[in-house]
């Protein structure tokens, strides 16, 4: 048996490491560890409730919009207010903008280098000026650093990388077009962030989100700018992004059967009516082949293998949590959330599976079209490649729907309602982050935060073992993954990263005494 350590897993958000046992060329056991802790909920306590909207966005620089929306909805609930139509639409639009940004970033900047051979640029013969510059830079780096003390950094940050036979795509043209698209994607993801900044003020960390709505007011100029930019992004998503996902799928068909998981959970997102009753992305649980309703009471958190000294298997409302870096047997700063005692995957694949089986027409249409192009059955989505494909399809659905939301905006009308901070109250805000289900809970006392909690996506899928020793979704998904070279375990990396982990989000402390009992959702 070989022990294989990947520390750090790079091109993700935050500090994540993975330890694998490899027997006869396959992963037989896995430990996934979150390696960073800050203590956000401890810091939130005792502050102005309105501050939570800004502070919780700083949990994560990649998905601040989702935290901002969850927090806004949570404060709306606690303040007993509801946003107006413009506010609802603008929240949806900035959230959609960041979903698209995050998915494009994930596929190209975070994942592509695990498949594409960046050194192919050295043979570039075409006339694209950017590619020529990249080529001359790479050549210069290699020549000028040869034999020097910094030789290892030549063509950094792209090299050094894991090296091995068959690791990267061999076809020269596929590689070159992917590298060009890597550069295009940098520009397109910035444009997606432009969408967010138009209505959100800035990004990362939107300034314009407040309880009751959005401080920005839509005008003709901003709507026109949004639409123009959105259409440009939509063309990229359909003509480039989706096609590149298909190209990777054809080059690495094995990953349609690797890295799968079987249970899925989604809170749903993107409110479609002013009562906030219907959602574009469906809410639900997929388990053993069927869809069931979601009940927040069934969440519990196990900590036997997490670096906290609290009681285990408690509802998030009950635990009294203190960090304990030296706790025996504990190996992660993530807790192990379980629903009905079982681990669940959240994220684009979960949303797609629940949407497809709940009869969401847009999801069904997109999935069926893609499957027929790949000449594949529906079961292939339960895989590492399935997750990549679901992200691209989600971008298409959001681009189309966002354009309709723009049409519904009322020009010049304020996008918010007023609030008064109550002496006491409590609230819940559920939404989706690009990487999965996100929930915020608050209790207000004497006009300040008495307690604040976030239950975030990566904690679900990157969780360590629970008290019964049952591994988290990523740990389970890794079992059976072939490892051709224990020194260069690229196959395991591809599986882990298909989940799009975000560790800054995942690590946080639940504070004691939250009564989540009153929260019932459909």
């Amino acid at each position, binding site marked *: 048996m070989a022990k294989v350590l990947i520390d750090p897993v790079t*091109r993700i958000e935050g500090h994540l490491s993975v330890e694998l046992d490899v027997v006869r060329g396959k992963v037989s056991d896995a430990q996934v560890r979150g390696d960073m802790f800050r203590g956000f909920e401890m810091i939130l306590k005792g502050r102005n409730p*309105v501050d939570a909207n800004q502070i919780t966005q700083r949990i994560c620089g990649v998905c601040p919009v989702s935290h901002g929306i969850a927090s806004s909805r949570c404060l709306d609930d606690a303040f007993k207010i509801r946003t107006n139509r413009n506010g609802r639409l603008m929240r949806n639009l900035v959230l959609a903008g960041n979903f698209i940004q995050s998915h494009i970033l994930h596929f190209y900047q975070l994942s592509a280098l695990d498949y594409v051979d960046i050194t192919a640029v050295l043979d570039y013969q075409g006339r694209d000026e950017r590619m020529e*510059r990249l080529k001359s830079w790479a050549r210069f780096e290699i020549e000028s650093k040869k034999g020097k003390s910094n030789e290892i950094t030549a063509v950094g940050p792209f090299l050094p990388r894991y090296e091995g036979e068959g690791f990267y795509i061999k076809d020269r043209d596929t590689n070159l077009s992917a590298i060009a698209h890597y550069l295009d994607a940098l520009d397109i993801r910035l444009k997606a962030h432009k969408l967010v900044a138009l209505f*959100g003020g800035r990004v990362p960390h939107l300034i314009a989100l407040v309880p009751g709505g959005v401080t920005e007011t839509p005008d003709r100029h901003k709507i026109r700018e949004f639409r123009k930019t959105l259409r440009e992004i939509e063309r990229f998503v359909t003509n480039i992004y989706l096609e590149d996902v298909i190209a990777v799928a054809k080059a690495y068909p094995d990953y349609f059967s690797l890295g799968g998981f079987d249970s899925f959970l989604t809170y749903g997102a993107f409110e479609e009516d002013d009562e906030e009753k219907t959602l574009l992305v469906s809410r639900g649980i997929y388990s053993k082949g069927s869809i069931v309703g979601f009940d927040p009471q069934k969440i519990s958190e196990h900590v036997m293998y997490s670096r906290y000294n609290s009681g285990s298997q408690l509802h998030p409302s009950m635990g009294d949590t203190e960090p304990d870096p030296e706790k025996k047997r504990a190996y992660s700063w993530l807790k192990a959330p379980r629903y009905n005692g079982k681990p669940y995957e959240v994220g684009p694949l979960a949303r797609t599976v629940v949407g497809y089986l709940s009869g969401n027409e847009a999801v069904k249409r997109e999935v069926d079209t893609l499957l027929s192009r790949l000449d594949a059955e529906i079961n292939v989505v339960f895989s590492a490649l399935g997750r990549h494909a679901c992200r691209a399809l989600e971008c298409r659905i959001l681009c189309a729907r966002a354009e309709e939301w723009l049409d519904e905006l009322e020009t010049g009308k304020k996008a918010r309602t007023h609030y008064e901070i109550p002496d006491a109250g409590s609230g819940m805000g559920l939404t989706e982050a690009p990487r999965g289900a996100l929930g915020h809970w608050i209790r207000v006392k004497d006009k300040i935060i008495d307690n604040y909690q976030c239950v975030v996506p990566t904690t679900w899928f990157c969780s360590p073992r629970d008290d019964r020793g049952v591994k988290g979704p990523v740990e389970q998904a890794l079992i059976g993954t072939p490892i051709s070279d224990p020194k260069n375990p690229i196959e395991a990396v591809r599986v882990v990263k298909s989940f799009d982990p975000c560790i800054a989000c995942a690590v946080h402390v639940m504070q004691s005494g939250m009564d989540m009992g009153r929260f019932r959702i459909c």
Partner: protein
Amino acid sequence: MDINRRDFLKLMGGAAAAITFPGVMLQGCRKALKKAAENTSVIWVQGQSCSGCSVSLLNGREPDIATLITEYISLNFHQTIMGGMGSTAVGVIEEAVKKKRKDYILVVEGSIPTKNYKYCTLGEVDGRHRGIREWIEKLGSSAMAVIAVGSCAAFGGIPGAEIRATGGNPTGAVPVSEILKGSNVINIPGCPPHPDWMAGTVVHLLLKGMPKLDEYNRPLLYFSNTVHERCERLSYYKKGYFAKHWGDKGCLYLLGCLGMDTHCDIPVRKWVDGTNSCTGSGSGCIGCTEAVFPDTGSRGLYKHLNAELDDPDVIENPEIRAAIMNLKRGGIING
């Protein structure tokens, strides 16, 4: 190298740069920058961060990120961008320490925990997990320069904020300057910092050496004016026209905007390729570039809870005076 005079001036802080960088210098800057970049690397490490500074860096336009990392600098290590993983990645910084390389600028994003190294670790060397503090001490001791990007690395930020009930801080999170006490750490605060502030400071180091810094070690190029001085809503303030609710027209002072107490150039530079700004979008400034963030107001992110510091008798504007009187009686401002 496609830097031109206009881009360069913008990056360097607009009109102020004309004084810092005389024309002759600019004509030669392309060549000089290329030469400097050949010899200078950047090692970017993340402590207790949200990666927001890195995401903000991706939103740079002049230069864009591809130009920055292929033509302005040589980026040796950056966890969110780099190709390498695990020991292949850590090997880069391990070798920089072992070979005592002195040819790099160390950039740190995120605060550093001091209570226990396990609060933030990066890689395993010789069978032992390494805390981020150890890496920063080792890499910092021979770096050409050290830049702390973002409010967490510069001042402690939110991970370094106080626990209200008990005092103290969950992990003993401190800024880079507390760890590297002998070095003159350049602070580029902001939550997040603007990409131009980060790229521009590096370019300044390469071409002209250390930029002029204020008392908090922030480059004066970007942090010499208050938000209020260049605010889009300054004329409202001068006319005494104040917004009562978020989203209203008017100066945002009564809603707790911290623009008067906060130094940065966002009202003129704006976020994401000139798209929008904090005050422009109607939300006001939360003081994220100041050392006391997120406790800039006496109890939070907004000034209105800071009223005990203001003396109503010397305030002429009746609306401001009334608002402060209200706060002194224990009232709060709702949005």
